[in-house]
């Protein structure tokens, strides 16, 4: 991969070695040493490979220098607009998931509460007023469990829609749910109004029920939610949803959970490493990484086998849009937490993202009076791959854009810190994603992918 241009080349071992030497030695020495590494290859062929590499260099597809750093500095000075809110409509939950950063809906010692319609409307008004010229505004109904405050969700959707015409905005609503209260009425409404639904399920029954139990109950959550989630997936034509799980050090064989979800008929799957504090017993530790990397490889291998069959499925972290992906500004500036993307608590407090809710030093203001702690916003605004030293030479930097600020904060105490475990997993995911793309395009450069 040519990091700065985004070009990806599939090469044979001889070419791979020659590219490694290309910038280090003189042309004659590159050819000579490549020949010594591969005595079975003729001098003429090595010269031909050298010329091919040189051609790519001249066309800007290899060894491309980084032309972006100054431009990104200018980009980060742009006025701040908010384009997405994570609405915590319910700080309450009917499950007691072991790894829940929301602490079963209580969020760091806060008490259980539901967002009122008044606060919700103020949040949507805040979003409209602070979104500048952005047309598409995103609102995720989150919790706790948002279906515990379903009437308010529906009224907020209607309110948002009612303001679209006068403001020239378009709301994209999404719902993240554990599925316990997922009725036909909810499914019908969500299919009409929600751009995306995130369905929380961890995978195999035993694991799911261990990590995602009812509060104080013994009933299997898996049994309760699977049929409902299958109904959602089918009713949305297997699009615009994700069956989404979390893996921890208790299921390092998480590929089995992904494959289990695929075998249940889900075509859009996302199973992700837990965000945790170092002291949490389920947190992924550095010694777990080799197993997890192997597991990603195993999963990619299985997906390769299923490619083009009726058992094919999408895995969120192996999806890379090579041809239509985001521009370089998006890739360098990241998820937008603390600037473009904010979380709103049931009482209307604003936080940089859902992961920071309850960390009171990160409370930015509220939806009624706006953002007050602009120093924190500025710090988030400055978070990009150039402000993280570990990102500078990383091949995956334009795919992860510096990683998750909450993860960095949890492990290093600084949102600009480097969460090395996360980086190792991310690099492997990008590697697997590109391998799958290369396989999909293996019929030739004009093949459809």
């Amino acid at each position, binding site marked *: 991969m040519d990091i700065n241009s985004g070009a990806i080349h599939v090469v044979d071992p001889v070419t791979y070695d020659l590219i490694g030497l290309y910038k280090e030695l003189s042309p004659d020495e590159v050819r000579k040493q490549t020949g010594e590494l591969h005595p079975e290859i003729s001098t003429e062929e090595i010269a031909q490979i050298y010329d091919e590499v040189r051609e790519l260099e001249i066309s800007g597809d290899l060894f491309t220098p980084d032309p972006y750093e100054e431009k990104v500095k200018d980009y980060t000075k742009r006025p701040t607009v908010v384009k997405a809110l994570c609405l915590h409509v319910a700080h309450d939950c009917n499950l007691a998931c072991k790894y829940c950063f929301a602490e079963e809906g209580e969020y760091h010692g806060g008490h259980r509460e539901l967002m009122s319609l008044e606060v919700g409307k103020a949040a949507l008004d805040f979003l409209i007023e602070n979104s500048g010229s952005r047309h598409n505004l995103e609102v995720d109904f989150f919790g706790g469990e948002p279906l515990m405050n379903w009437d308010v969700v529906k009224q907020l959707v209607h309110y948002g829609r009612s303001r679209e015409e006068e403001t020239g905005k378009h709301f994209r609503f999404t719902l993240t749910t554990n599925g316990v209260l997922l009725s036909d009425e909810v499914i019908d409404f969500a299919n009409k109004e929600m751009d995306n639904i995130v369905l929380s399920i961890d995978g195999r029954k035993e694991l799911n029920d261990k990590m995602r139990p009812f509060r104080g109950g013994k009933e299997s959550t898996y049994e309760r939610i699977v049929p409902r989630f299958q109904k959602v997936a089918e009713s949305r034509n297997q699009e615009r949803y994700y069956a989404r799980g979390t893996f921890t050090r208790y299921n390092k064989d998480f590929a089995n959970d992904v494959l289990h979800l695929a075998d249940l008929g889900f075509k859009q799957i996302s199973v992700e490493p837990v965000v945790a504090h170092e002291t949490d017993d389920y947190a992924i530790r550095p010694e777990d990484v080799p197993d997890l990397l192997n597991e990603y490889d195993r999963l990619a291998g299985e997906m390769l086998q299923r490619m083009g069959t009726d058992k094919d499925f999408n895995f969120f972290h192996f999806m890379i849009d090579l041809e239509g992906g985001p521009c370089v500004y998006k890739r360098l500036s990241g998820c937008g937490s603390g600037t473009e993307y904010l979380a709103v608590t049931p009482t209307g407090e604003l936080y940089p993202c859902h992961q920071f809710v309850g960390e009171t030093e990160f409370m930015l203001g509220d939806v009624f009076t706006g953002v007050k702690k602009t120093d924190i916003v500025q710090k988030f605004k400055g978070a990009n791959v150039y402000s993280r030293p570990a990102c500078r030479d990383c091949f995956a930097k334009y795919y992860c*854009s510096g990683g998750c600020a909450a993860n960095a904060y949890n492990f290093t105490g600084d949102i600009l810190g480097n969460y090395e475990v996360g980086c190792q997993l991310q690099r492997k995911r990008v590697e697997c994603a590109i391998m799958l793309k290369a396989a999909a395009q293996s019929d030739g450069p004009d093949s459809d992918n």
Partner: protein
Amino acid sequence: MKHIRTLKTKRLTNTVKTGGCGECQTSCQSACKTSCTVGNQSCEQSKR
């Protein structure tokens, strides 16, 4: 080329002039909610 097969990709260097409209989806809203992943997001301009 005989030894090198180049995949079809968007050239990032070309997006410097055209990019930055900000209309694209916020990555954490899509599915992850716990990890920043940007490379799989779609560009709104290329959808049009």
